């Protein structure tokens, strides 16, 4: 009897492995192996037909740190993250509060906010070209009406990154809104009533009651926004191509450029590893935050 139970258990374990195997195999091939291979290749020089690639240790990383472009691109990406994350979150919260309020045409408002979420970034960039085109674009038409001279929003270093940032915020705020919206719907209406009776104004209620209750959602949205600030770069291909003079170049775009425009994959690999390290830090931070939250409960 015991023997049979043991056999049965082993059979089930085998089934489990067999069921998971196809997914695990593909995942190893396209996530784990490439992550390790990227690291390995980042330690070698770029091979040419005359000079085969040789082991170089961390030389490629040293090259990156010595390259002023690296610092420009890293700074750009920090600014990109530093602006898109808080601003999208603020927009998302305001949108959710409005989309949750009892206002006429609420469902129109809600879908207007959400629509950019389902558009490809490439299409979003095309839509915004219409706004940014110098002289003829919507923005210049409006500012021109007030007597301002035309601006090459995408073509000058001072405004290129900002223009790219605006498109990202437009694209992701409506997506983050739905998480706030869902969270708001779980907050009992009596709380607002209680706060009102206590004499708390709307602002106090939002700051002292709503925001703390929405904190888990904010953390979740924050992590997503952080990942997006690495991932969302498609619009650069249409709007600025990272220019002018690297003013709007972001890390992932630079990786693409190094690997597929300059065929310098060792440096692209080194940069990829730095990005993976940063993402790893985000993962660790998220797990710790989640742990802390459960401790409070």
């Amino acid at each position, binding site marked *: 009897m015991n023997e049979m139970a043991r056999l049965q258990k082993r059979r089930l374990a085998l089934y*489990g492995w067999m069921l998971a195997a196809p997914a695990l195999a593909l*995942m190893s091939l396209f996530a784990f192996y490439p992550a390790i291979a990227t690291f390995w290749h980042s330690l070698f020089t770029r091979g040419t037909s005359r000079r085969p690639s040789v082991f170089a240790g961390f030389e490629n990383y040293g090259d990156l740190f010595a390259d002023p472009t690296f610092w420009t691109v890293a700074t750009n990406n920090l600014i990109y993250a530093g602006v898109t994350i808080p601003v999208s979150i603020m927009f998302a919260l305001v949108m959710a509060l409005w989309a949750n309020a009892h206002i006429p045409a609420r469902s129109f408002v809600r879908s*207007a906010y959400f629509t950019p979420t389902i558009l490809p970034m490439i299409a979003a960039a095309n839509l915004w070209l219409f706004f940014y085109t110098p002289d003829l674009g919507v923005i210049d038409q409006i500012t021109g009406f007030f007597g301002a001279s035309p601006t090459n929003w995408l073509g000058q270093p001072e405004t290129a990154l900002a223009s790219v940032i605006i498109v990202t915020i437009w694209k992701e705020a409506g997506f983050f809104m739905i998480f706030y919206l869902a969270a708001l719907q779980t907050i009992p209406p009596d709380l607002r009533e209680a706060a009102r009776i206590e004499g708390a104004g709307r602002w106090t209620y939002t700051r002292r009651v709503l925001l703390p209750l929405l904190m888990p959602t904010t953390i979740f949205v924050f992590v997503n926004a952080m990942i997006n600030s690495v991932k969302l770069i498609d619009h650069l291909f249409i709007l600025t191509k990272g220019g002018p003079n690297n003013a709007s170049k972001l890390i992932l775009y630079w990786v693409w450029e190094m690997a597929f425009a300059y065929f310098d994959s060792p440096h692209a690999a080194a940069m990829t590893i730095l990005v993976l390290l940063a993402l790893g830090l985000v993962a660790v931070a998220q797990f710790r935050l989640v742990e802390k939250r459960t401790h409070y409960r």
Partner: protein
Amino acid sequence: MNTDTTVANTKLTLPDFDKLLDALGAWVLAIVWISPLLFAAWAALQPSGTALGLDFSNPLTFVNFTYVWGAVPWGGYFANTVILVTLILAGQLVLCTLAGFAFARFEFKGRDTVFILVLLQLFILPEVLIVENYAIVSKLGLFDTALGIGLPYMASAFGIFLLRQAFKSVPVELEEAARIEGCSWMGVLWKVYVPAAKPVYLAYALVSIATHWNNFLWPLIVTNSPETRPLTVGLSLFGAPETGVDISVISAATIMTIAPLLIAFLIFQRQFIQAFLRAGIR
């Protein structure tokens, strides 16, 4: 008596004023938010060269759409995207169902460690590994094929995670009942677990379709012919400003690219938003 009515009055008018401000703010933001789409739709219907003048006296025309349709193999791009999205979704559904089932209902050595590895993949974005994945896809001889674009996305950690959660919440009694009636493991999966997870499947499918309809960077890297190129890549080649293409024509091409998904969204709004919500909360 008199004071009572004034108190009641202020109580009535103050919230109304607040409400009006709310509604006004919400509407203004909503209009600002969809204005890029509205402008593009309007520009696409203008004769080329005139759109940016914002001259509302021009007659509307479909000439840009017919031009775009003739200038690029748009029908082919469209078919490529549909094939790609279907292929990825089919692969994901099969692989993630099996793996989700394994992690939810089977005990095997190392299961929890492997599952943590799966979760780790949520943070290794496929977008970041483009250099090495390109080499792998090329070595497999899958460069410039639909399978080459789709394969890296099929074992979706996220899908496995979602389905595992869904399967775990199915009461074991249901499974036992099915087994008493003589169902095999596959029969149990197919007759008990899959039907129970239907809403999760729907949510996951909608998000997957939207994601891969819109995906750009990876398809750009692994395709180089109109025979495999999806819509987004076609659009980017077509819409680059330095090609000197008129903005009305770009708008028409953009509208054509987003139309299928946009129409689907407008019809199934609630399902879409629910899907994104369900899929987002991990």
